[in-house]
């Protein structure tokens, strides 16, 4: 499909002999918010990290199958370039502690050795912080350390850092699990805004969050993609009994 941005074809992920993601086939459209949920150890994070080739950084971790980004297999591309195109935000806000808010936003350019003029950096910083709904709060303290911000602000700073590289896709690995409800709600509101320009894949343990923020939801169980459907359908009448058992808390 023309609108497809990411497609997994028979994707398998392993940790040594441990087969953690099994033959996943999934097709994700541009400007969609996708939630990935499932019990601990179901392979959802491994699948996410397979998309931007973070999985292979772990010793003994391997993968098989294809992840197509705009039709091109990421495993045939330069891994650094893949991560340049696919941003990632992690569970705990992780701004660089020794860098200022400003430097954190443009860290991707600095660390990749990309030369950007001061004027362009200013534009990138303002645009990224505005997109991450943080500009108004930090515009007068751009040169303070990022770690001075609250947890929710730090996470939005990490999102701004990801946006600064203008990725095609942003991966979120339980992005609000370390945040309080107010910060969680500001990050969730941000997802709705980011959707206009980016495609988001969010791994979450919080089912209500999946229901609130995503257009479609994928349910993983024991390494398999059990169900992938419209979020409303999934939370009102899931097709698979295992999905129903999981979302209604009847999992034994």
């Amino acid at each position, binding site marked *: 499909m023309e609108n497809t941005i990411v497609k997994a074809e028979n994707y398998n992920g392993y940790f040594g002999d441990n087969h953690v993601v099994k033959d996943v086939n999934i097709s994700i459209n541009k400007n969609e918010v996708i939630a990935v949920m499932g019990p601990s150890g179901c392979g959802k994070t491994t699948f996410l990290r397979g998309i931007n080739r973070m999985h292979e950084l772990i010793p003994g971790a391997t993968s098989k199958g294809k992840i197509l980004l705009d039709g091109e297999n990421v495993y045939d591309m330069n891994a650094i370039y893949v991560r340049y195109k696919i941003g990632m935000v992690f569970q705990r806000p992780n701004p660089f502690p020794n860098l200022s808010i400003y430097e954190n936003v443009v860290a991707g350019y600095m660390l990749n050795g990309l030369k950007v003029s001061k004027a362009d950096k200013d534009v990138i910083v303002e645009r990224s912080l505005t997109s991450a709904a943080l500009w108004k709060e930090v515009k007068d303290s751009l040169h303070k350390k990022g770690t001075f911000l609250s947890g929710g602000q730090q996470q939005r700073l990490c999102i701004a850092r990801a946006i600064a590289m203008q990725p095609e896709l942003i991966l979120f690995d339980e992005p609000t699990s370390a945040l309080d409800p107010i910060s969680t709600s500001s990050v969730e509101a941000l997802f709705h805004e980011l959707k206009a320009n980016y495609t988001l894949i969010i791994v979450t343990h919080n089912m209500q969050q999946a229901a609130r923020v995503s257009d479609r939801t994928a349910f993983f169980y024991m390494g398999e993609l059990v169900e992938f459907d419209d979020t409303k359908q999934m*939370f*009102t*009448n*899931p097709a698979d009994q295992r999905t*129903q058992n999981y979302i*209604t808390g*009847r999992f034994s």
Partner: protein
Amino acid sequence: MTQLETEISALKSELISMWILVQSQFNKAKEAMVQFDKDLAREVLVKEKRVNSFELKIDRDCENILALHCPVAIDLRFLLAALKINTNLERIGDIAAGIAMYVIESPVNFDLKALEKSQVLRMYEEAVNILMDTRTAFEKEDTILARSIFKRDDVLDKINIEAPEYIAAIIREDIENINESLYILSIIRKLERVGDQSMNIAEEIIFYVEAKILKHQESLNKE
């Protein structure tokens, strides 16, 4: 069993208790009509308050479960269905009280022959059975039984449509019957509503168990 399952199971028991009370009210109103027993009719009116209390309690429990447990899928469908079944049952309770009120208000006894001729007795018996079977369908999550309600409601509708003709015949026989006949016609109109409420309940049972929406479809398409 999770806490949500426990709460849902308790809610289901509560709805069944309300159902039993409403059935009892409906049967007593019938008995009051047939025997022209004004004391029994008054008892129905007094107990109507208990039906209303049930409705409020079940509404509040549904609200609490929705707020505290954020149910999804079959649990969410059950709660949405429970809210509507609760409303429908309360209305059937109102209908039973309305019939009891006619017995109290009527200056003349209802004649058994007129009750038979007007088909109101047959209609009442069918309505009692329908109400009983919707409860069984709910308890056993039996959607086949729930679907059978749609056809049986047609029997009530037919009697309701033919009622003016029967009532006119009774009045023609003896103009003195006019008061009694108008009360009987009003009871028939109320019983027709019991059929509609039971159909709504049957639709909710099917929605809850099968996730199918049958509302606003012709009865033939509901099967």
